[in-house]
């Protein structure tokens, strides 16, 4: 079917819908808000589910930071939340590991994968390429509901008697494969695997949809090279997910077999619980290869949407075209390709062949090049601009800062000769929290503040947004900067208590300091959450279609677009997405829908 036919087809159904809407009644509550097939509603579902998971995940980090910061104190409030697991207000070690594991799983997969790309791919792809909806709205709906069910199962696992999975978010076997190895490796791990398998299904349904929508459903004139960088970034995010999640899934299937059907894919020569297991010949390292073949691209699945949104927001609020549009696309391609070739840098110390290790060193440090190109392009984008510090812009600037800080420490860890000391220390914790945790969150916050008016027709409260920004920005650096020092001193991650260690116990007061900042930052995030929900009903109303003076298509839709996005025809596109220039009428931007003037050259 040609592009044109799809557009017309979609248009026809839209007209039909419209007709219904006028003649009869509103859409039923269930089809509008629950089993919605409207990409904008699905985006909101992903976002709100993500926010709820983020609160749960962050609260978990507050609990285990209380333990780390004040190992000799007890907190009765914890017992209220965790019950038996924190008897007398003292966190149980077994549950400490469960919390760490769940914190990682929830934040990496449920919040920063589903909550981030699920939200913005759904919201922005049709709106920015000029489509009425996704290629398959039904699959899109399924994608959300698979995610929802995955979430329900994960949530249930928090309440079972033996506790949720507790082998770290990477769930390396044999620890995760053997019930004897830890409490969390029992039913909790089974639920974890089921939940994550459903999550993979959700992610694939979503990803395939995003790719086919971007490739097939662009409006007339929207060539690939006229697309906003957000769309390019979301495109590569989806490609990464489609190619790597199945590999993770295969790793899970083998793990399920080892756990329940007596196979020995990952198990060999193990003596545990007082007896020798019959399993021989498996390789525990195989799982790590399968896991990190997703695990590393996953980092970029988390980062790329933020990069795309930061590019868009920096350009819009600098009133300048993004600098080096093509270089930005090429660097995205570079990052995407390299993302598949570097997974073993998580495994330098597993006893892997040192020669193989050196290949991965080379490929890993290569990623620094496209990343550096992006940073320099962002810096040049704001250079000689006319900067408006909207909340979104603040977060986009913060994103760049954190991306630099976290990216640079990656150069240490990617170099195996340095990783051999820093591996699995707090240096790693600091590195990935800054770069794929906080920085990705900043990309997400920027996106939320920027597109909130498009989602709800209202603005979020600005003073609160600024407070939120500074509290988070300062807090993030206060938490994670000193952690590098702990890591350089060799302090291992995932320790429940350091007080018995001669080498690490002198960091006690620093740990207490970090924990206090964590609590403050947690409450600052609640400020954001409240702002988000309250502004849906009470925020300042959007009065103009294009509040930020953007060039892209989403701002040509009505203030509260219905299903189908545009009333009447889908606009046609005549120019690239970053035509910030003097239009001759005193404006500093030309929307993509404005035809070229006689004699004007397209970019």
């Amino acid at each position, binding site marked *: 079917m040609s592009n044109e036919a799809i557009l017309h087809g979609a248009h026809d159904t839209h007209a039909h819908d419209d007709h219904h809407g006028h003649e009869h009644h509103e859409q039923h509550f269930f089809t509008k808000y629950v089993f919605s097939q409207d990409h904008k509603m699905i985006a909101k579902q992903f976002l709100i589910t993500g926010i709820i998971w983020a609160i749960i995940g962050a609260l978990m980090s507050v609990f285990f930071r209380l333990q780390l910061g004040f190992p000799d104190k007890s907190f009765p409030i914890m017992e*209220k*939340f965790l019950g038996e697991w924190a008897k007398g207000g003292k966190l149980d070690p*077994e549950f400490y*590991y469960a919390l760490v594991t769940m914190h990682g799983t929830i934040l990496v997969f449920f919040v920063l994968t589903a909550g981030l790309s699920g939200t913005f791919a759904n919201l922005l792809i049709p709106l920015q390429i000029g489509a009425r909806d996704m290629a398959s709205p039904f699959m899109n709906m399924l994608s959300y509901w698979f995610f929802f069910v995955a979430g329900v199962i994960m949530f249930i696992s928090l309440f079972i008697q033996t506790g949720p999975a*507790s082998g770290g978010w990477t769930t*390396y076997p*044999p620890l995760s494969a*053997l019930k004897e*190895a830890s*409490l969390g490796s029992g039913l909790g791990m089974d639920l974890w695997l089921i939940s994550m398998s459903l999550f993979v299904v959700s992610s694939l349904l979503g990803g395939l949809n995003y790719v086919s929508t971007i490739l097939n459903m662009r409006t007339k004139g929207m060539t690939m090279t006229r697309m906003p960088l957000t769309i390019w970034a979301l495109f590569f995010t989806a490609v990464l997910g489609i190619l790597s999640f199945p590999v993770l899934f295969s790793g899970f299937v083998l793990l399920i077999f080892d756990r329940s059907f007596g196979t020995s894919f990952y198990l060999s020569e*193990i*003596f545990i619980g007082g007896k*020798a297991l019959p399993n021989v010949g498996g390789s*525990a*390292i195989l799982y790590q290869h399968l896991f990190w073949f997703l695990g590393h691209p996953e980092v970029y699945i988390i980062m790329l949407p933020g990069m795309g949104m930061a590019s868009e927001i920096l350009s819009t609020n*600098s009133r300048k075209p993004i*600098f080096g*549009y093509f270089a930005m696309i090429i660097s995205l391609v570079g990052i995407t390709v390299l993302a598949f070739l570097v997974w073993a840098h998580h495994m330098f110390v*597993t*006893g892997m062949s040192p020669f193989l*290790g*050196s290949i991965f*060193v080379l490929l890993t440090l290569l990623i620094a090049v496209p990343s550096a190109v992006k940073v*320099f392009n962002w810096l040049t984008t*704001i*250079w000689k*601009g006319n900067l408006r*510090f909207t909340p979104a812009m603040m977060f986009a*600037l913060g994103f*760049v800062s954190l991306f*630099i800080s976290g990216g*640079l420490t990656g*150069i*240490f860890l990617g170099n195996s*000769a340095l990783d*051999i*000391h820093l591996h*699995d220390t707090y240096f790693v914790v600091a590195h990935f929290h800054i770069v794929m945790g906080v920085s990705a969150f900043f990309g997400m916050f920027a996106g939320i503040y920027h597109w909130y008016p498009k989602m709800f027709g209202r603005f979020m*409260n600005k*003073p*609160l947004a*600024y407070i939120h920004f*500074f509290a988070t920005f*300062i807090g993030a*650096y206060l938490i994670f900067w000193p952690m590098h*020092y702990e890591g350089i*001193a*060799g302090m*291992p991650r*995932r*320790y429940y*208590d350091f007080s018995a260690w*001669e*080498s690490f116990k002198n*960091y006690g007061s620093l740990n207490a300091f970090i924990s206090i900042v964590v609590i403050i930052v947690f409450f600052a995030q*609640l400020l954001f959450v*409240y*702002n988000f929900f*309250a502004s849906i009903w009470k925020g300042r109303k959007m009065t103009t279609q294009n509040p930020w003076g953007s060039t892209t298509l989403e701002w040509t839709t009505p203030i509260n677009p219905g299903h189908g996005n545009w009333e009447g025809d889908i606009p046609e596109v005549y120019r690239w997405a970053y035509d910030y*220039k003097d239009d001759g009428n005193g404006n500093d931007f030309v929307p993509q829908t404005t035809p070229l003037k006689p004699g004007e050259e397209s970019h």
Partner: protein
Amino acid sequence: MSIFITVAITFLVLMIVYQIAQASEYAASLRGTEKEREKSTNKTMAILLVLFFFAGLYAIWLCHDKLKGQLLLTSASKQGEAYDSMFLVTVIVTGIVFLITHALLFWFAFKYKATNDNQKSYFLAHNNKLELIWTTIPAIVMAVLVAIGLRNWMNITSAAPKDAAVVEITGKQFNWIIRYPGKDNVFGKRNYKDINDATNILGINDKDPASADDIVAQNGEVHMVVGKPFKFIIGSRDVIHDVGLTHFRLKMDAVPGITTTLWFTPTITSAKMKEMTKNPNFVYEISCDQMCGKGHYSMRGTIIVETQEEYDAWMAKQSPYFAAAAPAVDSTKPAVDSAAVAAK
């Protein structure tokens, strides 16, 4: 009950804060035009960002000043010395990049804030020469860092010298078991199916003549001779562990079913380190660096680096495992064990 009160109070506070923020936004909307307000916000934010930058620089210095005393002393192994210098080079390179890019970021943010109606952006969209420059320079810098890294990596992972002493270190939930080969310098064969926590903690084959003089230390204490290369033969009985040697700047996973190795030459004795750190309790520690279950954080081993004489004196006091262990009643069992398992 108190949990609901906590949540309710949090909610109430948030509500009040939101109302105040809303009110302040409305109040601001009464003052001046929207454009004016935007300009003043831009100015405030630009100033705050610059303040953040300078406060940040000061905080970085303060943090370093406070924590540098708690960093580890110079490395206690030859391999670690190369590590420390490479680390320093990387810190300097990344530090320069960090400072330059951040200075530019905050300087541009301050300088180009929109506070003037006549201000127009410089609508620059691309410049291939610039792109080429900042693709090439990082590529060259990375090449240098990779070259240094791979040279060190090759050294660290090279084969141990022929005269290296061997020590076997086996992880189990949640402690380390150390084995020395004894006078013959050969370890007796092991089979995990022969493991018995009471009498044969490593599953050593007592029929193997090489086993006879093997020494097993269950307290997780490794003795090493200063200036002598030692090779660690690393394994695990149950889940994955990791031999973390912070002071020697090394680590290696202990994986069940696989043998990994690591060698290094300690350069500073434990006694000397006690003097250098002015800490009489100082001890080289082996930390488990791979999550291994609920006791992960307590899986501690120690290393005593001493002179050859001290080492010999200590070694002389050790008795072979099978001499010390209970009567070898169990020794008949292993032979049939595998057959029995297969029959099941």
